[in-house]
């Protein structure tokens, strides 16, 4: 059944429960879809057909034996290539890890496997998650299924594009400054950044340790909530993981009732630099939520304007240290070991050859920001700005339950448009970065297509720490209402991709 790829995870689960489709059939259908369209989309870096079909067969066997399985058992998923999977190539989008097969599973992967979810393969990303377009991948960029000449967003462009191209109903991404939410917005899909510490970072190739957060991607809110529940929760292998119950995200997604909910529109996240079509869809979504019973006010978060500079100090600093381990000694690429060059030389030659431009820029920036003499003014100061931003959120949350903004200032831009202008590229993340700095939960939900270009617009919701369910409450309400308006989810409007072979 080719339309197996158009089903939601929930629908697939129901089909399997009812005996109308097997996980192997469903997995095969998605593998076929990948084979058909991925030469154009290039969402995947590695497809593990054998492994996936084996996982699927195992789920089918267990189901047939009467075993009680979780709600997503047998459903296929695409995994951002930044999370380790034992024995499967993991590159983080970089040449320096070409061919590396980790000898261990990340906690996220462990939980996916335990839930019976079938991992189809590893998706493309900006190198070491540094980027907002996936153009920084050492393995070529991913193309936005809505318009193949455009970027899908980044750093997790592969995961969102895979979902948007119907190559998988579910995906996992990681969000450090918007890397799940921004591609979700650009591809008309749902992307959630859980509360920092709500999902385990063990096995996540680190970019910025105090910001990185694994999260779910899907085409619908309920699918995302079910996946969120699978991967979230305390992990003793991650010292920064939160030892509290997972917020009731599935319940909230099912309920989707916003009557009485207080919503704050962030004044600073809009206006100049924002595409009119994006702002139009955003305002309409806000009005819609009002009609559904929410109370909307404007709130000011005056320090948000410093979020971008603070972020581009904290991230490179932590990343410069995190990426020091890529030194050609224990794993990964080794260049220049001719029997004459000493270890330091080999390290330097390898890192020169193995890292792309953006990675080099951020490593050097971070090295600079941490240097004695500069630490207080740069890294030290940025961590203080972080406190001010967290206080802006805290003050806002005294007045409202959630904050909203557009997910991005613009729709997806053309491939090549911003690649030579790092700062223009950084500005993609203006709306998403504040929640990473504060560690709040945040998500992007599709809210329409921009008039100018017919490209998807994302509606950004931010909730207090460990109140992730509020995201799903809002997202679900919006989705239901918009689906009614459109006669289907936004994704039903995506152009048909040309099928190769």
């Amino acid at each position, binding site marked *: 059944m080719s339309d197996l790829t158009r089903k939601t995870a929930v629908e697939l689960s129901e089909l399997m429960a009812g005996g109308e489709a097997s996980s192997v059939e469903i997995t095969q259908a998605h593998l076929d879809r990948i084979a058909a369209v991925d030469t154009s989309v290039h969402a995947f870096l590695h497809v593990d057909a054998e492994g996936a079909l084996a996982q699927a067969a195992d789920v089918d066997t267990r189901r047939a034996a009467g075993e009680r399985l979780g709600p997503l058992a047998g459903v296929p998923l695409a995994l951002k290539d930044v*999370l*380790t999977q034992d024995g499967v190539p*993991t590159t*983080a989008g970089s040449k320096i*890890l070409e061919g*590396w097969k*980790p*000898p*261990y599973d*990340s906690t996220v992967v462990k939980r996916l496997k335990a839930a019976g979810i079938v991992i189809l393969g590893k998706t493309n990303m900006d190198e070491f998650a540094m980027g907002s377009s996936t153009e920084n991948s050492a393995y070529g960029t991913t193309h936005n299924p809505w318009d193949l000449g455009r970027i899908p967003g980044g750093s997790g462009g592969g995961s969102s594009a895979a979902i948007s191209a119907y190559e998988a109903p579910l995906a996992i991404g990681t969000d450090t400054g918007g890397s799940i939410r921004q591609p979700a917005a650009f591809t008309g899909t749902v992307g959630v950044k859980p509360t920092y510490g709500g999902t385990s*970072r*063990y*096995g*996540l*190739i*680190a970019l*910025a*340790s*105090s910001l990185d957060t694994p999260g779910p991607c899907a085409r619908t809110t309920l699918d995302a909530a079910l996946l969120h529940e699978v991967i979230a929760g305390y992990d*003793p*292998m*991650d*010292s*920064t993981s939160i030892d509290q119950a997972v917020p009731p995200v599935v319940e909230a997604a099912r309920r989707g009732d916003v009557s009485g909910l207080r919503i704050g529109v962030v004044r600073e996240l809009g206006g100049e630099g924002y595409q009119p079509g994006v702002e139009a869809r955003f305002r309409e979504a806000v009005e819609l939520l009002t009609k559904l019973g929410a109370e909307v006010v404007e709130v000011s978060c005056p320090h948000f304007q410093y979020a971008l500079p603070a972020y581009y100090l904290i991230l490179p*600093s*932590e990343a410069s*240290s995190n990426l*020091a*381990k*890529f*030194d050609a*000694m*224990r*794993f990964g690429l080794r260049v220049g070991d001719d*029997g004459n060059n000493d*270890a*330091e030389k080999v*390290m330097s030659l390898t890192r020169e050859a193995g890292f792309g431009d953006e990675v080099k820029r951020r490593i050097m920036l971070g*090295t600079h920001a*941490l*240097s*004695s003499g500069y*630490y207080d003014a740069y*890294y030290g100061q940025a961590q203080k700005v972080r406190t001010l931003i967290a206080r802006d959120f805290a003050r806002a949350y005294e007045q409202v339950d959630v904050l909203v903004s557009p997910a991005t200032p613009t729709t997806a831009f053309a491939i090549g448009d911003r690649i030579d202008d790092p700062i223009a590229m950084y500005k993609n993340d203006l709306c998403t970065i504040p929640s990473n700095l504060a560690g709040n939960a945040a998500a992007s939900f599709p809210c329409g297509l921009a008039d100018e270009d017919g490209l998807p617009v994302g509606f950004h919701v931010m909730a207090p720490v460990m109140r992730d369910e509020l995201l799903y409450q809002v997202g679900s309400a919006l989705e239901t209402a918009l689906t009614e308006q459109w006669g289907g989810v936004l994704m039903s409007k995506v152009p048909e991709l040309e099928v190769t072979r």
Partner: protein
Amino acid sequence: MTVVADVLDLDAALEQFDPVMGLEVHVELNTKSKMFCGCPTEFGAPPNTQTCPVCLGLPGALPVVNVRAVESAIKIGLALNCEIAEWCRFARKNYFYPDMPKNFQTSQYDEPIAFNGWTEVVVDGETYRIEIERAHMEEDTGKSTHVGGATGRIHGASHSLVDYNRAGIPLIEIVTKTIEVPPAKAAAVARAYVSMLRDLLLALDVSDVRMDQGSLRCDANLSLKPRGSSVLGTRTETKNVNSFRSVERAITYEITRQAAVLVAGGKILQETRHWHEDTGITTSGREKSDADDYRYFPEPDLVPVAPSREWVEEIRATLPEAPPVRRARLQTEWGFTDLEMRDVINGGALELILRTVDLGVGAAAAKKWWLGELARAANESGKELGDLGVGPAEVFEVQKLVDSNALNDKLARQVFDGLVKGEGTVAAIIESRGLALVSDDSALSEAVDRAIAANPDVVEKVQSGKPAAAGALIGAVMKDMRGQADAAKVRELVNTKLGI
């Protein structure tokens, strides 16, 4: 090719300069698992058999703090009279080196777990107080062996092989404040400090403190202050100081070397130097410069450690009695004079004697062996008393054999010689070297008869009223038996046969 530096005569140096010292001691903890992961910490395991993604520094791995390491750190801090931090963090010390799995060391920077302490050392009956700056937690690196060069040294090596079993093992770094004591005592005080620290850490049961195995390491910092001046000189740091004796010798050498430079009008380079035990000199290592900016920042993968005051008091209650109190008590129990006790302390034998006594050996006998035969062997081989391969258990075994007349003193000394040389167990050595005392009375009797027959003049002397002359007969029998006879028994037999 190392250039041997000029040195000034020690006395001359001490006349003109005051040595100012700082000692940094690294202690490898005896926890079962590593600082940030659950890998085993056994010494001597086959290479790379005790590693995991965390201590290998594989992408994606994360550290989790070992509670027993924190407890040991607090114990050490309390034993050194430190304040224990109410809240502290780990920090990353960033630098590149092939045996560093992450190319940063997770350590502590400006927030150590223990700080502002003090301790005392006793040298030649005088007590010196040493201020402790801090004690903090960090992790050990992997171990490299260098291949292709001469004697495994780094120079001329073609490549290196790295074993990460040691990477991640918990270390506590103990840093003193500057130590200023009477110049002539400086080196001895430094030695005594390290020795005292070793005893303290053994008593706390937080480490094996084997300098020969690297679980206790010392870096010695030294600068010279011209007499009468308050201006501190430039400091050097000397590494590879692998025994108490080396501490004393290295400090002494650096005093003489630096003095020679200064007297000749030169400047001391702020650098790391390498101690060579075989040649007794330090050589130049790396120049310390701005390149040593470690870009410290708080470790984002870990959360702060905030030991509750209740926990600290619980730990304090488990501390053994303070060293001076303990020393006094043991001296009384053992019946040693002040001088004897001083020798014990100076010889670094306190813990060893104590453990030997605990096994059942008399204190005097324990002291005799540890400060006698074994100290001699230590001196000859340049090893520490505790690193000879002879432990309290062996001393107990040998003394037991002496007590039961299976060995005499002379034979016992030969057994110790065999033990130090690694020839095997006590029993094996006695067997292979044929050291057992002859207990066969008839054999002894025959030997006595032979001696009597061979020395008629001595017999005559004895029988004519000089019983002391029998000593010569006893000597003859002992020689005949190659020393493997109980002298007392021989004397008895001689006396019986001669009728005295």
